[in-house]
């Protein structure tokens, strides 16, 4: 019975992820437009874009290899696999025993490396530029991410996301100050990983400022649709992750009562909507950053992460 329930939960979670991801991207885009005084495309526009792109036959560069053709599929699959591990509205999905934070970070790294390789495959200047910047930024974002994981593992005694979310949901975890520092570090990592302002601008047309868009420049048709869908899914994944860790209230567990189950989905939707609004507000408010200043921002995130981990370790040593 519990196995069936956990499988059903996973299926609902996946279906929601796949359908909601483009909508969430649309909400962020629409809110940002409104804040900047434009009308903005409707929130379902990303879905329509995906359908439009899927109807077009891709045009490949003459020297594209099988890696270039397979990369969008691999990147999307890796991101989807990572997203299947992150609990959304309910804990105790069938994938819960696998939901190790390091494995999730590893799957995201797999998607990132695959797209970076694809960027280098056609031998264009812009693709190489995107790949170089993507891997370099990751070199600074990864330590920050690991230190956040370190802090969370200290709090919950495990790197398993379900266990962490469960422990934080009970509120028995410990002091909030290191958790706040970890949240700041994680936000910086999320901004870098998703290519949001001030580090990157997905809608940018100037190649000098591109990171993620540069990697997708040689793609068209269904390949481009997959890459756009990957980006949208990754944003949803990160927001879900942040919600699962830092806004742990309101999620259902297999032991919860009917009321919690009924409320779990709307609460998850509210959390995601709130985070998306906050992201749009932030993006509308900040100016883009020079590429060579990005390591400073991520270095700050690393520093916050070290501080959070050391403070928590010391606190636990004293307690």
């Amino acid at each position, binding site marked *: 019975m519990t196995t069936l329930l956990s499988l059903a939960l996973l299926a609902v979670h996946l279906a929601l992820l796949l359908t909601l991801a483009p909508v969430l991207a649309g909400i962020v885009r629409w809110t940002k437009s409104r804040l900047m005084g434009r009308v903005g495309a409707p929130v379902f526009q990303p879905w329509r874009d995906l359908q439009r792109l899927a109807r077009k036959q891709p045009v490949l560069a003459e020297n594209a290899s099988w890696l270039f053709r397979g990369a969008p599929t691999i990147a999307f*699959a890796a991101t989807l*696999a990572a997203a299947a591990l992150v609990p959304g509205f309910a804990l105790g999905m069938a994938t819960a025993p696998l939901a190790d934070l390091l*494995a999730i970070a590893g799957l995201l790294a797999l998607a990132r490396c695959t797209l970076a390789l694809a960027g280098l495959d056609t*031998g264009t200047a812009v693709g*190489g530029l995107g790949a170089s910047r993507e891997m*370099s930024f990751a070199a600074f974002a990864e330590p920050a991410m690991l*230190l956040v994981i370190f802090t969370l593992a200290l709090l919950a005694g495990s*790197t*398993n996301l379900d266990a962490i979310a469960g422990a934080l949901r009970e509120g028995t975890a410990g002091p909030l100050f290191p958790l706040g520092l970890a949240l700041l570090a994680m936000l910086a990592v999320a901004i870098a990983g998703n290519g949001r302002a001030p580090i990157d601008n997905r809608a940018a047309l100037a190649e000098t400022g591109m990171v993620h868009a540069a990697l997708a420049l040689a793609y068209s048709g269904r390949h481009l649709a997959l890459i756009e869908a990957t980006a949208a899914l990754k944003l949803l994944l990160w927001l879900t992750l942040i919600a699962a860790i830092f806004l742990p209230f309101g999620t259902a567990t297999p032991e919860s009562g009917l009321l919690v189950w009924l409320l779990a989905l709307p609460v998850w939707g509210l959390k995601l909507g709130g985070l998306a609004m906050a992201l749009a507000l932030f993006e509308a408010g900040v100016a883009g950053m020079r590429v060579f200043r990005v390591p400073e921002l991520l270095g700050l995130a690393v520093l916050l992460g070290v501080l959070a981990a050391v403070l928590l370790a010391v606190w636990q040593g004293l307690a």
Partner: protein
Amino acid sequence: MAGVSAAVLTGFAVVVAALLGLGAASAVAPRRIAALGSLGACGVGFVLALAYLLAGAAPATLAVPLGLPGSWMTLALDGLSGFFLLVLSAVGAAAAAAALEADADATAPFLPVLLGAMALTLLAGDAFALVLGLELTSLAAGALVLMRHNDSAALLHIGVALPGAACLIAALALLAGGAGGDFRFAAIRAHPPEGWPAVFVLVLALLGAGAKAGLVPLHGWLARLLVAAPMHVSALMSGAMTKVALYVLVRLLFDLSGPAQPGWWGAPLLVLGAAGAVLGALRANMADDIKAVLAGATVGSVGLIVIGLGLALAARGADLSTLAALALGGAMLTALAHGLFGSLLFLGAGAVHQGAGSRSLVRLGGLIHRMPVTTAAVLVGAASLAALPPSAGFAGQWMLFQAVLGGPRIDGFGLQTLVCVVAGLLALSAALSAAAAVRLLGVAFLGRPRSPRASAAEEAGQTMRTILIALAVASGLVGLFPGGVLSLAEPALRRLVSAGMADRAGLLAVAPQADLPGYSALGIALILALSAGLVVWLVRARAVPGHRFGPVWDGGFGPPPAWLPFGDPLTQYGGASFAQPLQRVLGAALLRARETVDMPSPGETRPARIAVAMEDPAERALFGPLAALRPRLVVLADRCWLPGIRRTLAVVFAVLVFLLTVVAIVEQF
């Protein structure tokens, strides 16, 4: 059970003797015999090691009528040496098979000697056999490179190996002294060192084994030796020789020094390991020669393993034996994983050198079209290097990360802070390795060819392709079944840290603690495969099939002229440009990277040039003073050479007086 162990040990003794004899014989016999014989010996060794580990790895010893006058040499076998013999024979078999493909040159006789010497080191049951094996290893490695007339790399190697040997001999002498001059390991184990002698053993073992493993700051020689050696020898050195040196470190610090050493012993290992992991991975990003890239990655992986050893020592000192088993198991898994994927990558680099005529990133590119099998195999190795799930590299690093995350359970504010910093550096090293792997693959194998020779590259031969595929499959299996590898390491873990991973590492998952969920490589692989299937199905159902080809869109550049058949090479990202962001931020700080731009003034027709100079801080700090010392030593040597009769007599007199004084003082006690 003991019968199996004794038989296996005898078998190994025969294999070592056969390898050493083969080296001597192949100096006169046809050279091909050396490679074939080594392959056979490694195959036998692999089966023996696997059988021994699966049978429970009961310790055994064997006395051999060789060695110092009046004593027999002892050979011994236990779980630790069995595991490393497994690594050695797997890597050695690949290297020997690749030697079949390589030209049968003058280096051939030294390959079986190198293999036999490494096996002798691992089988050593007393200090004499250990030193003999390790020094024979160094000499054979030096000779292999010296025969290729790459004198500076070989001499640097010998120059570092000799002081390293001196340190090791001193450490072993201290240990044997504590055991009443008996230098068999069983006797030393019964009388572990205490107090200051123990600290000296730690320092000397770190210097001695660290020099031979390429541990920072003594890593400069390794990078040069790996670049200079022929491909199968570099594969063997990177995959096995560094691991043998690390085995010596484990043997000295975990086994011979006894289980009662304090936890702070781990701290120097953590610092040196973290420095090596970051510095090696950064050097891998900066190098242009693909073998130098892999050499940097080797230094980085040695650093990773030493981090695991340091954590295991610290945890064992704090009586956290389960954490120590996790850390040591992670180190051993990483050692096996790097043994496989490191040799895979070096052999791939050799195939590229043969097929495309160059090892320089500036001259490669687009090899995926001409060398598909090599590229696919290197892709598997690079995924391990980048620690992407579900590869072997990820499994090893996952365990190391888990051990680091358990680090704060060890008491002591200083160590806790150190562990937090090491956690960040470990992640930095992993991300830098990923960047290096993407750079290596993306620049050498993808994109457009950067030279006519690369555009006409030829796929590796049948033998080479088979070896690469076999290594890729082995590496993939280790990645999918880390629990199986850990069950092979179980006897060693139980022996050294008195706890194992058996209760936490099954076929399906590896967990940091018995009742917690952990990492399931098979599960992750399954989810990945299911997601990929779902995506393919969705795309098939929804999207238009097929694709067309068109000219590449290169940011608005026009079509290249006919004399540039692969487009303008300067519009393509290369190794140097890919690494530039990292070089400006980290390279400038850690490697003193400096850019010099030569920009012609308007109207001049010469091209603009950018040059990057960098130097390794360890080499500057270590070898700079030594190089400055050399002229003074030469003057001194000159003076000793022709001192004149009066000074000679004076020296003899002084020495005589000194020796008599020593005798007089000794007589007093």
